[in-house]
């Protein structure tokens, strides 16, 4: 039994500049190659330009970033669909892959709406954010949390975080949180739009 009932990430979207220090810190800690990225930072942008008669321009441009790894969901669709039970929810509520069982069928990647599971070419199995379980057991923070230069990432007991900061995770470009019940609490950017009601677009789809 771990120190936490259910771990959750806390993300302050109003501070994120999309720098991806979190992404690279994760890759550095886990020695991930290019093409295997456990933490990603989608950018969601919108707004329009209007050019006036004298050539002067007006606009209502907006954009914001969301740092995202795996949300260790309460209703993890990846665990449900995995044919070999390799994907499982374990200690501290962390969802992780048992590489000894995994057959690399990629069904979890097909199902996950957050693109969390990634195929590992070297081991030929799936891999994903494991909440830096090895650091958690030693009382250390996940690499991404420790890295963020804006202190936009934090983590803790899901219940406590929700009590303090609310329960918002249904913000574009993420899906509605009722689908898999992610353990992610977001403090919204002033321009954040609710899932499914967005007027913008994903600006960097090839980086997710």
């Amino acid at each position: 039994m771990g120190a936490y009932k259910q771990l959750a990430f806390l993300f302050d979207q109003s501070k994120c500049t999309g720098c991806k220090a979190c992404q690279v810190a994760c890759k550095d800690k886990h020695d991930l190659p290019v093409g295997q990225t456990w933490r990603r930072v989608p950018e969601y942008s919108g707004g329009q330009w209007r050019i006036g008669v004298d050539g002067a321009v007006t606009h209502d441009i907006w954009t914001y970033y969301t740092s995202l790894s795996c949300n260790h969901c309460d209703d993890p669709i990846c665990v449900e669909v995995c044919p070999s039970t390799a994907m499982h929810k374990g200690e501290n509520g962390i969802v992780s892959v048992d590489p000894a069982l995994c057959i690399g069928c990629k069904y979890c990647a097909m199902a996950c709406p957050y693109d969390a599971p990634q195929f590992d070419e070297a081991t030929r199995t799936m891999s994903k954010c494991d909440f830096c379980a090895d650091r958690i057991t030693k009382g250390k923070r996940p690499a991404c949390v420790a890295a963020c230069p804006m202190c936009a990432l934090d983590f803790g007991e899901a219940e406590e975080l929700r009590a303090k900061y609310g329960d918002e995770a249904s913000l574009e470009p993420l899906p509605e949180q009722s689908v898999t019940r992610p353990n992610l609490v977001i403090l919204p950017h002033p321009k954040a739009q609710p899932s499914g009601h967005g007027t913008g677009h994903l600006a960097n789809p090839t980086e997710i």
Partner: protein
Amino acid sequence: MTSTSEPDTLSLTPSRRKFLAWSGAIGAAGMVGLPGCTLQYSDPADAPLGGAEEGERIVWNACLVNCGSRCPVRMAVRDGRVIRIEPDNTGDDDLGNQQIRACVRGRSIRQRMYSPERLKKPLKRVGKRGEGKWEEISWDEATTIVADKIKELISKYGNESIYHNYGTGVIGAAVARSWPPGNTAVARLMNCVGGFLNHYNDYSAGNIEAAVDFHYGAWMGNNSNDDTVNSKLVVMFGNNPHETRMSGGGEMFVTQKAKQLSGHKVIVVDPRFSDTAMNLADEWVAIRPGTDLAFVAGMAHVMISEGLHDQEFLDKYCSGFDEEHLPENAPPGSSYRSYIEGKGEDGIEKTPEWAAKITGVPANDIRRLAREIAMTKPCNINQGWGIQRHSNGESQARAPMLLSNLIGQVGIPGGGNGEREGANPLPLVLFPTLENPVRPTISFYMWTKAITDGKGMTYRDGVRDSLDTNSNSNVVNDVVLGSNIKMIWNYGSNALINQHGDINHTIELLSDESKVEMIVVIDNQMTVSARYADIVLPDAMASGETIDLAWQSAATAGNLGYLIFCDKAHEPLYDSKPVYEMLTEIADKLGVREKFTEGRTQEDWVRWMLDETRKKIPDLPSFEELRAKGIYRQNVGPYISMAKFREDPVANPLETPSGKIEIYSSNLARMRDDWNYDQGSQWIDPLPVYRQTRELPGDALQLRYPLQCIGHHYKQRTHSSYGNSPWLKEAHPQLVWINKIDADARGIATNDQVRVFNDRGATELPAFVTERIAPGVVSVPQGAWYAPSASDGVDKGGCVNVLTSQQLNAYSKGNGQHSALVQVEKV
């Protein structure tokens, strides 16, 4: 209680802060959210040398690139190799004690240390410059060749023929620092044998550095960013700390924290909707690059006609605002007020409509912003380096300064003087580099011209006196450059090729080996510039392979100053040597070993520096203590620029001829008629007036090359450092930013390969079609590594400097690298 009310600033009580944290969940505009690192600043089990897993040890070190910040990177070492980076784990989220977490670039530092492009052995060029054909030679042979050439050139042409190029590839360390050029180990070496040709100012800020001397007398710096907790309004011109100064301890943190604490309003003026704008700005003014001075003039018109300007301040502290306060020899009609009201030389009234046509900012917005800026006080007007890096950059740099003068906000808490943020320095004693007796010094951007036409250049061409390089002291001088450049030291520098304008021209110039006879490159990666060397000396990585000190002092961390111990993770890789060691060998061959080393090793020098600094900072720890602790921090307090001048301008005059702020600079008036510059398309104006110089909106060249091309400073790299890190290229791919309107007109979609070109050259890279850049403007992020393809010679690396100009600006003799007109086509 609404969340837009003004909380106490620095005296925020804990319960007040907690409230702000919770009200963040309800989401007021921009200022709320996580109050920094609440839950944990550091891991419970993580003492400074902790964080190590079994079988590992952690050493402190620093990332040493020119990002304007300076971050500790703690290195986890196992089996003699760095296997992981851990960030700073000291400090908290208080301004002045912030945790200095490394940015995305520093986190990938292992990919620089262990890059396949690490230079391994000394190399001698065979074949042509740039061909990339090398012979591996011994250190003995390499140092002999260099020493012999130095001796030969000194005897034939004098020390002035040997030039120290600009390079900031390793900056912020004490011994192994490649900048400023007068403070490097190379400088010390050359000063042992009679000196060298130095340069003044830099690629970052060469235009404002020249201009501010005339406006304020000398470099002042602005109020430090932590002081903006006292501001009600902050206006940022071409300033983008959230992408350029991304250290968790640097301006990205400080500006964000200051806004959070104070709730002040932020207006960002920038051609791009930068990450600073998206994170901080309550309003983004999308402006055509290079036209900020017209924008300010339009606002000045509103302020003057509505009586919103601070007449009292202008009368007491400034010279040249109106006819009543002109210097003696200034003709009537030459005041700024006359310029604005159309009573000056050009007879044009600088109305908001006039400004809107030039800048693209709607006239009504100009009116509204003018009123807001004039009436919201205290107001900090500041700038980054973007607006001054244009062909009219000297005057552009004065735009925010002038604006801060008009509203009288200079020298007070919460105000500002229009420069870039400053800070209080730590009184550090660093590596001494002896005296350089060579008198002439040229601007950082002049070296290509000084290769062909250096001999005989005078002050009119931009030659300054190295004894006093202030612009005012070099309006006239008696210094003459005695030689063309025959040898270039290129230490930690990619400015030989990659970072200098008009790459194709430089390559052609350097291909003539009779002009520059020797190019020595000291670096740790095979950079683009290294490819054009004659001798390559492989440097050890100052981050991780030597003992040194890194520091943050005087700007870019708000009110925090600090010193980092750079420890050794392992020995220098391959056959690389620390720069101090390799130069000692050259000194030996030159017969000045003892003079160069004073009998000290690099570590000895570090101990010496700490001892000397401890005389000024008594609580500085010992060498061993600092090694164990990793970092020494000090809250240096807020810096209020020009406070003494504001207090009493008579007792504390500025170093201008009048002692006051010179809106009309009498020195510039003198230079206008005397100096050498391109009088058809360049101007030297005593007032900060808008001029349509080379490749600005309205240029006839736009018929062929309609788009303005800037090169914004990008999260993937620090200039060109880290440009070969695979993780960073994956995280932030090199793309040309183009507005959707311009892209649609050309049938371009995101990730389409496009060609960006003008008469100077062409580059091909994928496009990023976005709303986040003004229509009519594209940006090729600067610093990408120039990579001409073998098949057609066209750059495929996306290097903006194939498109930029080498033209020297009128009196700064500096760079207008953001002034470039291009066309974009789908490939």
